[in-house]
């Protein structure tokens, strides 16, 4: 008997053993900017504690999808639910701007490739982390300082520099401040948009190791976007491959890299140095 092993068929396979419900579910997400169809009928499911990698060439839609997950943009079509304590499963795109901001501050952390997007460069590093806590309602200076310190420490940021401004720090250190800000409230979901791109190899290894440790120790669910297949292979449990706004293949990370099913994925994997 021949099995239908197409990406669509594998995506359809319903979990039978996994008891946990997905943390993140996106259904049929489409987005057009002018004449450009950035996302086409994208489905995504991420389970608690796993790292989902998203790979694809520039313009494939991976960062757009991540921005949708961070509620920074609204698709033309599609639903998005996060299974969070004390929340119903309504479509998050129906939330008001204020509700989105509060939900993201409390439950979603993000690390951008460009630290300028995630940090106030002229505020102190600890102040950047505290700002996140302030949005979520924390007001005590002592608590803010203690929590900022704890998050910076967990992100392996040298505490002797916690009052330095990000503009005075190296790229790797800036990413650690972003990471500390992102995890300060122990988010259910951590979104990582090319977090190591532009960093030198040794700093990249340190950032990846920190992420892996956070995922292991705190069971943080992560979605990692990268064009670097080595980073995805090191970090991800499952992988989505995107091209022209569509998911062309998804599967276990080792399967996608060792036995790619789609011609584009084969091309991508074979092109890796």
């Amino acid at each position, binding site marked *: 008997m021949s099995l239908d092993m197409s990406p669509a068929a594998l995506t359809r396979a319903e979990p039978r*053993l*996994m008891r946990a419900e997905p943390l993140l579910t996106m259904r049929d997400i489409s987005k057009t900017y002018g004449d450009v169809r950035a996302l086409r009928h994208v489905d995504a499911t991420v389970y608690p504690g796993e790292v989902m990698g998203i790979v694809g060439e520039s313009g494939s839609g991976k960062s757009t999808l991540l921005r949708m997950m961070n509620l920074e943009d609204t698709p033309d079509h599609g639903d998005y639910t996060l299974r969070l304590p004390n929340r119903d499963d309504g479509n998050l795109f129906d939330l008001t701007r204020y509700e989105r901001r509060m939900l993201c501050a409390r439950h979603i952390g993000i690390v951008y490739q460009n630290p300028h997007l995630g940090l106030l460069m002229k505020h102190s590093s600890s102040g950047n982390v505290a700002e996140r806590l302030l949005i979520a309602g924390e007001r005590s200076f002592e608590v803010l300082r203690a929590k900022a310190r704890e998050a910076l420490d967990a992100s392996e940021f040298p505490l002797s520099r916690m009052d330095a401004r990000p503009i005075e720090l190296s790229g790797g250190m800036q990413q650690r401040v972003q990471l500390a800000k992102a995890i300060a409230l122990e988010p259910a979901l951590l979104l990582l948009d090319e977090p190591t791109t532009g960093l030198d190899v040794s700093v990249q290894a340190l950032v990846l190791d920190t992420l892996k440790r956070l995922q292991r120790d705190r069971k943080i669910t992560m979605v990692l976007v990268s064009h670097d297949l080595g980073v995805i292979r090191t970090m991800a449990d499952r992988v989505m491959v995107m091209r022209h706004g569509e998911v062309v293949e998804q599967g276990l990370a080792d399967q996608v890299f060792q036995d790619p099913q789609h011609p584009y994925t084969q091309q991508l994997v074979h092109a890796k140095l």
Partner: protein
Amino acid sequence: MTSTPLLRVDGLTKTFRMYHLDSMLHAFEGVSFDLHEGEFLLLRGHNGAGKSTLLRTIWRSYLPVGGHVWYRSNHGEIDLANAADVDIALLRREEIGFVTQFLNARPRVAAQDIVAEPLLLAGTSQAEALDQARHWLDQFGVRPELWRAYPSTFSGGEQQKVNLARALILPQKLLLLDEPTASLDVGARAALVRRLSDLKGQGVAIIGVFHHPGDVAQLITREINLNTRVVADQSEEEENVAL
């Protein structure tokens, strides 16, 4: 053997489609066999016969194009050939292990931390996990001065010892071994055979590919030869089996 098998491979077929060559590569076709708890199945065959491919297809690094791999998990029976990815990931964490001949070490992670990681993921305390990691590093002959070093700088043999310590630290129900003795010295080979013997005694079912099967001769329960395209369990089709 009359008990319900742990694994029932039925007509498993693997073909690779290579788009850049516009061709298909047939790895194996119609492989069928049963495996019971505590059995050690040796896969034989010449280079390219599909031994490692079969292991990877059961592990689901490779996607089969036909057939079934029925596995009796602690959560119920499931066909690994078409199970959801998250179910496969769950089984890999809890029940099925795969040992390759290469260590996939993350940069800047110490040997003892690499070995301890499966225990930490299973909920063991940091101190206990590190204790056990050091024990198994020691068992496989990794010198204590290397336990906190990064394996990327180790020799191939030392890396393989770390790999084995990590892969075998948690007892699994099903263990897939892809030439685990390659590049090991005599002491480490002996340690590996002792560990495999213990696991087999605990009921772990094992399928292995070995460059030198003599290393594990005393553990082998059955053999399957993949030199023919259509392969069945030796108990059903003796002509396909070269003992």
